[in-house]
């Protein structure tokens, strides 16, 4: 039982991070109908922003305090929001009227550009860098059950962010504009919605979430390098598809399911080598029976 609860917590904390990243994929897909492959590298940039910001902020707010952690997270999120909007403005906007495949290839190009520029010695360098400890660590122990304070923080903050996302999309004016653009871009434009501004906002919001996810990811595994976003990015993309791409609660659910699958199969002696194989085979099965994802609705392609 302890073993089960422990794995449940491990899986939930990992899944929460996937969920945060998956939200960015799914929102961009919602408004633009394309996969922003550079999203996983914005996550990496978020972790590196925090890496470089921490030594600047620590003298002002003290080492390992809640305020330092909050300031680092917020500033990194802001930096990445700007980066995300810049990527959209420079690389995707000029191609908006081109075939979708062109934008998709450009996204892969942007992703590779960020990864390999980051590996250059004069930028970040290819070597793994030690990520600073942002929050003091205290382990909560219930019998044989160990819960790291980091995992609790990740879970709690993710829950808050998910609610905030739901609120922004469902209860605010900009959220309504996002939904309108997602439903029908031309009709929304005719109704006076500034489509470019809405798309920029979507990229900014998604990138800020990716930055937070990157920092959470680095808090659990405090070694960061320019390729760190590739694995979680890929998993989160799959989580978004699993939940039903374009669907916000679906992305969150998909992330949690994927995190749990990976953790439970990873923890089975003899099967740990096949954990990704088994997890992804299950995903294929789910998608065979629910092609639109767990929460997605099947839409007829407009001709």
């Amino acid at each position, binding site marked *: 039982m302890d073993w089960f609860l422990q794995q449940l917590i491990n*899986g939930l904390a990992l899944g929460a991070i996937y969920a945060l990243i998956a939200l960015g994929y799914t929102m961009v897909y919602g408004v633009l109908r394309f996969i922003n492959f550079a999203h996983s590298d914005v996550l990496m940039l978020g972790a590196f922003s925090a890496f470089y910001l921490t030594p600047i902020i620590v003298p002002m707010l003290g080492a390992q305090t809640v305020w330092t952690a909050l300031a680092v997270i917020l500033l990194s999120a802001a930096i990445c929001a700007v980066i995300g909007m810049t990527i959209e403005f420079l690389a995707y906007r000029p191609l908006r009227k081109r075939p979708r495949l062109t934008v998709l290839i450009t996204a892969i190009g942007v992703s590779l550009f960020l990864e390999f520029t980051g590996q250059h010695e004069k930028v970040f360098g290819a070597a*793994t860098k030690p990520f600073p400890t942002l929050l003091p660590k205290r382990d909560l122990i219930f019998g044989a059950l*160990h819960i790291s304070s980091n995992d609790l923080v990740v879970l709690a903050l993710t829950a808050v962010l998910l609610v905030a996302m739901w609120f922004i999309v469902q209860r605010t004016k900009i959220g309504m504009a996002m939904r309108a653009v997602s439903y029908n871009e031309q009709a929304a434009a005719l109704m006076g919605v500034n489509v470019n501004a809405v798309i920029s906002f979507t990229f900014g919001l998604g990138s800020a979430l990716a930055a937070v996810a990157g920092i959470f990811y680095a808090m*659990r595994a405090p*070694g960061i390098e320019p390729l760190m976003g590739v694995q979680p990015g890929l998993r989160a993309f799959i989580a978004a598809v699993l939940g039903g791409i374009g669907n916000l609660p679906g992305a969150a659910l998909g992330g949690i399911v994927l995190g749990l699958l990976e953790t*439970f199969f*990873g923890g089975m*002696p003899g099967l740990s080598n096949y*954990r990704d194989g088994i997890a992804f085979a299950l995903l294929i099965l789910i998608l065979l029976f629910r092609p639109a994802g767990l929460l997605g609705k099947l839409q007829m392609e407009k001709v």
Partner: protein
Amino acid sequence: MLMKRPLLFSALVLTAAVLGLAGCQKTATDEIAVGEFASLTGKEATFGISSHEGTVLAVEEINAAGGVLGKKFKLLTEDNQSKAGESANAVNKLIAKDGVIAILGEVASSRSLEAAPICQSNKTPQISPSSTNPKVTETGDYIFRVCFIDPFQGTVMANFAKKTLKAQKVAVFTDVKSDYSKGLAKFFKEGFLKAGGQIVAELDYNGGDKDFKGQLTAIKSANPDGVFVPGYYTDAALICIQAKEVGLTVPMFGGDGWESDKLTEIGKEAVEGNYFSTHYSPDAGGEKGKAFVEAYKKRYKGKLPDAMAALGYDSALILADAIQRAGSTDGDKVRAMLAATKDFDAVTGKITINGQRDADKAAVILKVKDGKFAYVETVAP
């Protein structure tokens, strides 16, 4: 340029003798040209530079003591930038153009393997300072190394876990992406079972993974007395951190892949009290070892030598010793003397070259203590 090396050498001697012009050739008659290829830049530069510094120090000391056979060593170094393909170019150039009589290098097994067939076909002895993959010396009878090989390291850690740590039940956590890790794990398991221990859990990860908690929770529920993690330093540091987070507090131990400052930079307090095996420690003692540490610190502004530096140093010493005993720089003769090396008193311990042209020698066990690596014990083969 495809002249056989002995021919080239006699041609040089002849030219120099007849014309009395020694200066215009790279290899003067009072010098012995020795080639070195190393990763001085690129991603494994820290290993390559350490090894190179050790070799340079050894050559300087040999020359200061009058050289070998009355001639001075001339070290010609080529940088392979840690890149695949560059080592072959470098070694071809050293042998064909510079006419070196032997090649020293490299740290990484993959790059030593690149150079080995070239050295073998040119009948030029190659001595690798620190490539531990068994395949390196299997290339041919001109290829040697001054370090131990992976099977030995696995056995050493098995005996250490059983005898010193008094562990009875051990878990093994292997990086299935790395041949190095799989090899170490295999030999560790064999050795530990033979010593009467029990393997209670075997879990796998992929090098570069960031989340190990699923596997670590499974290891914890098997209640081991220790965990063998034969991976590289970044993964090992993250594994130690996450092990503490799921409440797995038993000692962790690994191989020489752990030896890097990054282990303690990333792992911080989570890696404290853990162990790993390696080739050398400045604290291991021995007259030769102490003299080396002093000389190295003096030469490189107070820097402490690591295992790569010590092995780089030993590779040059063992070559000088073989040439001395051969009484010649002829490739065949030097090769025969290298193969006959027995109980050579080196910095990293007494070296005997065995039938596989690998070094039979002791390993040292280090413990992470206060962010540094402290010497624990020496384990003889």
